[in-house]
């Protein structure tokens, strides 16, 4: 589905992503974890086309995509959400989902002026309402997106991402700032999206959440991949424990007697 090969990204003197490679299998939930500053979001920005990597290759559905722009990747089937919510605040919830359908609709200027987009618009509205119901926001579709609560805005972002009918969905810390109930709903939603046949790449700090849903996890630290495997394997990996809890052997310390 998605193959990342020897990806390297350098900002000035900082190597944000250092020779990272991994393979995301079709219809799996692939977790990307690591301490702050490990390069996870940079990796996301590269995969979604906002940054061009210095070195390396990204292959999606058999094509090289590292040179494509975000809107082109969206059309190809990669959708994403953001760590810091970026929704269209001053339009209604329904309109924001319809906006995100852009690459799946065809009507141009002439069709809009002559009203030839009528059928397409009606279908799009119906589809948008279905998606909103799917993520659990259907009652509020006429309200402004900015009026939603924080957790609901996260749901709306996912609805928007789904509107472009992606085959790969990138979720950047979707559970950040959510309460327990919202987190549980989110887990169910992510599972439901997987059941639709979508492949999911997810960055998450919440260990219980990521260990519970991911089929495969890749751990980054200081730009480098330090582990890659099933959640169980990751939990027992010494490098990972070291990266999260700090290194050293307890016997190396001199205790005062």
């Amino acid at each position, binding site marked *: 589905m998605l193959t990342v090969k020897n990806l390297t990204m350098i900002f000035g003197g900082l190597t944000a992503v250092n020779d990272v490679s991994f393979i995301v299998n079709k219809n799996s939930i692939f977790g990307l974890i690591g301490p702050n500053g490990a390069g996870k979001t940079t990796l996301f920005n590269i995969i*979604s*086309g906002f940054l061009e990597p210095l070195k390396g290759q990204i292959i999606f559905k058999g094509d090289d995509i590292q040179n494509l722009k975000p809107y082109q990747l969206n059309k190809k089937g990669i959708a994403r959400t953001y760590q810091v919510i970026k929704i*269209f605040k001053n*339009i209604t919830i329904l309109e924001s989902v319809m906006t995100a359908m*852009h690459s799946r609709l065809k009507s141009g200027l002439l069709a809009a002026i002559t009203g030839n987009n009528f059928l397409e618009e009606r279908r799009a509205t119906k589809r948008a309402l279905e998606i909103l119901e799917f993520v659990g926001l259907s009652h*509020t579709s006429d309200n402004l997106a900015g009026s939603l609560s924080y957790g609901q805005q996260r749901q709306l972002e996912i609805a928007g991402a789904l509107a472009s009918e992606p085959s790969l969905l990138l979720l950047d810390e979707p559970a950040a700032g959510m309460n327990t109930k919202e987190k549980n709903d989110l887990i169910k939603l992510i599972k439901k999206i997987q059941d639709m046949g979508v492949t999911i790449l997810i960055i998450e700090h919440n260990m219980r959440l990521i260990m519970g849903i991911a089929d495969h996890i890749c751990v980054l630290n200081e730009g480098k991949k330090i582990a890659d495997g099933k959640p169980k394997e990751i939990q027992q990996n010494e490098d990972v424990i070291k990266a999260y809890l700090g290194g050293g052997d307890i016997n190396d310390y001199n205790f005062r007697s």
Partner: protein
Amino acid sequence: MSNTNKRYFYFLLILIAGLLPVVFHDQIFLIMLMYSSAIYTIAVSGLDILFGYSGQISIGHAAFYGIGAYTSAILSTRLGITPWITMLLGGILAVIFAVLIAIPAVKLVHHFLVLVTIGFGQIFYTFVGNAKQLTNGHTGIMNIPYFKIGSFSFNTMISYFYVAFFIMLMFLFIKHKIIKSRIGRAFIAIRENPTSANSSGINVRYYKIMAFAISAFYTGIAGAMYAHFTNYISPSTFTFSQSIIFFVMLLVGGKGSLFGPIVGVVTLTVVLQYLQALSQYQSLAYGAILLFTVLFLPQGIVGSVFISPKKYFISKKAV
């Protein structure tokens, strides 16, 4: 208001506006204000597509207004082409210039874009003032032909009004159609959040240029109409302060709405009539109006008065 009610309301509004000049047919001054308001509404609606919807500022729209006016005036006086066609060509030339400006300029936002558009306006003003062979310089172009259908010439105030009014309705309708389409949603997405628009599949650069083009077409057509009504144009109409007037009209009326430009144009046209007496202090008055609007009516008259507050609160069903 339900959709049917809304339709009746619009119809009634159009009927009243359309009948006003018949009722007040001896009030020449009022009719003059009405047709110039219709022209301004088209121009300001164009600016609204750019600024109100796609979020790109322009303080150089007098140039597009002028390109429309000069193209139509020159082609109809020199080549004798009917004004209906030259008006369209004026709009198209405005689009061409808009695209040329937009290709580099859409990379800029806020004050940088302001500077580029002001610069473009100044270049246009200087050009028409100096290209004497083409534009007759500051003397201006005289005897610009009227609009005609067959042998009927639109040469009275009332006939100006109906031409302008009809074209205005058409352009407002088209604007509404564009805004409610995939393209309009792309414009709004760019205004709201360019990054998110980009990852939502919208080619931000392309749609920014398109917004410039559509906007220029509206303003160019308005300029051409102005030329064929007044029969005389000179560079002094297409100055920086004309761009400011468009901008203030949009802000006062309310950007990003169908009625905003109309309300802004009518308000400012009436106010400006009273301000004529102030002569050189007029720009002081624009400044004061602009300041008042930005501070107390940031959404303009339409946005502050008519938008239902319900939209801002979650309905009870949701919880």
